[in-house]
């Protein structure tokens, strides 16, 4: 999919985040390549969401630089900010839909903000976005409080995709979904990536998501990132990464997606 491979679309250097006396990130580096699906994993409280919030400019770090689409997020002008925001979409954990607006109106918010468009066209665009994320007809007229968790996430994704962005940020997209809905969501993201050429930056806990759709994995350990392809990371000898991939759940996910992976290491084969 990527036209020019290895062009970093997100570049994080020397990131330091601290809350009070607690250091969350200490000299963290991360590159995201255009067109890839990157899964960010880590223990609870290791600062995955803080990393995502920093990359999209919602959190001011203590030190370090964050470049997205070639612009420094931390120092750029307001005009640049709008230009970059037009080219990314963010799906928050529970959708973060505006509760006073219907789903269709939610999708129209970014369209209204950035483009002069007749209302009829906006309504039509909102309607087909509802279809693209796999929501049933009629969802557009509903309010967020009338939707299930999975539908709220899909609606949030539809809003994130309203401007056909180049990058989408997903914060735990499958958390709280049943396994079937989670698998459907994975498929949806993989399809959209395939057809739209999206770059996906995804914070996740879900091993199945990681194995089925992520090109690369970035693991937050010891306040830094260790990134690589899944095959590389499975072989990493950091104790947390070991127990992450080789615990009972990791083994199950490895087994079911085994065909995607090269021969598992001896360490893996022995306990099975």
């Amino acid at each position, binding site marked *: 999919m990527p036209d020019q491979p290895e062009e970093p679309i997100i570049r994080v250097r020397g990131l330091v985040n601290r809350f009070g006396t607690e250091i969350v990130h200490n000299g963290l580096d991360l590159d995201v390549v255009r067109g890839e699906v990157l899964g960010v994993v880590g223990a609870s409280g290791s600062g995955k969401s803080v990393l995502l919030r920093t990359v999209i400019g919602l959190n001011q770090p203590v030190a370090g630089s964050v470049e997205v689409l070639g612009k420094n997020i931390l120092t750029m002008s307001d005009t640049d900010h709008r230009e970059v925001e037009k080219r990314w979409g963010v799906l928050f954990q529970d959708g973060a839909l505006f509760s006073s607006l219907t789903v269709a109106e939610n999708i129209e918010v970014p369209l209204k903000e950035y483009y002069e468009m007749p209302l009829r066209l906006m309504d039509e665009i909102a309607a*087909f976005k509802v279809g693209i994320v796999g929501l049933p007809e009629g969802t557009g007229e509903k309010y967020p409080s009338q939707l299930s968790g999975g539908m709220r996430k899909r609606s949030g994704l539809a809003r994130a995709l309203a401007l056909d962005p180049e990058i989408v940020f997903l914060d735990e997209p499958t958390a709280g979904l049943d396994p079937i809905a989670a698998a459907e969501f994975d498929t949806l993201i993989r399809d959209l990536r395939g057809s739209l050429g999206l770059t996906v930056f995804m914070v996740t806990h879900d091993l199945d998501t990681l194995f089925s759709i992520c090109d690369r994995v970035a693991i937050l350990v010891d306040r830094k990132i260790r990134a690589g392809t899944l095959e590389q990371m499975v072989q990493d000898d950091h104790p947390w990464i070991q127990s992450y991939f080789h615990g009972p759940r990791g083994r199950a996910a490895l087994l079911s997606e085994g065909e995607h992976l090269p021969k598992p290491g001896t360490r893996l084969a022995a306990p099975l």
Partner: protein
Amino acid sequence: MVSATATLVESEESGSLILAATGEWLVETAADLDRRLRGIEAPKGARVLLDLTRIDRLDTTGAWLLLRTEHDLTARGNTVEMRNLRPSFEPLIDQVRAAGFIAPARHPRPATHTIAGFIAHIGEVSLGLIARAYSILGFFGLVSTTAVRLARHPRRLSVTAIVAQMEQTGVNALPIVGLLTFLIGVVIAYQGADYLRFYGLESYTVQLTGASILRELGVLLTAIILAGRSGSAFTAQIGTMRVNEEIDAMRTIGLDPVEVLVLPRLFGLMLTLPMLTLCANFMGVFGGGLMAWSQLGIGIPQFLAHLSTIAPWSFWIGMIKSPFFAVIIASIGCYEGFQVAGSAESVGRLTTLSVVEAIFLVIVTDAGFSIFFSALQI
């Protein structure tokens, strides 16, 4: 950033209409393309060729515009053919096509914009009010029976919780209640003296201020401040707990939410409101006295002499009313908190409602007391 451009060129070739799409078919150019595409007039039954050779960039919105055109023209009886689509755009077209055509959602319009809707709305609101009054009465009954049941096991009553409530609703409200009633006392004395001087009765300023503060204004102001300050807090606290399912968790553990959440707030407020009223009365009369002294030269002994002519009942009437107001404020505040359902949005709405209802009921009750006491001729 150079803005994107896209065009549509119409031409005819051996009886079929050729639409050549060129440039960047993106959400940026959608408004312009939309207008052009809607303007297309193909002869009925004609063949239409959508030539996509020169599309440089395509996103979902652009792809959807192409598909909509195909769809609309087909519906009008034309045969439509897309040709020369770049292979790299195929997945995108397929994805959008797979989503199917969904009719645009209607924007909800309030039904009250028609006359019939307006009348229906009045009816709905009236029935809603009756249902609400019934429901509040039911809640009050629930709280009362819980209180009676608790009276048989007084040790279950958490003194710590009551004291904590008293601190939040009472001690922390002292400065604002004191300051406001002091100012009201000053204002009444100042304005009253002006009018009374006209009749040569300015020495009655003390009686005027004292009687109105002690009998009505002290307790009423305190109740209104507490409805805004504590009643709203009760709704927000209990409402947030409902959103977090804390109330449900309590029930499963066997705790009675009314006993744990409502009674400490109710008893706390019933104890603090009379005390705050006492402070408010003092500050109001003090403010009036200060004004009488500075404007009319009424000294302390004279002031006390005037004050003592006010019937003691005036003071007691104010004090008697205060626990009733406390019951209203605490019950409404807690009741609205329990009405929270679903989203956090309703917490805000019900908090507003709780303050409005509490103030309304406090003033209505005050009017009721006024009639009651005048019937008793005090």
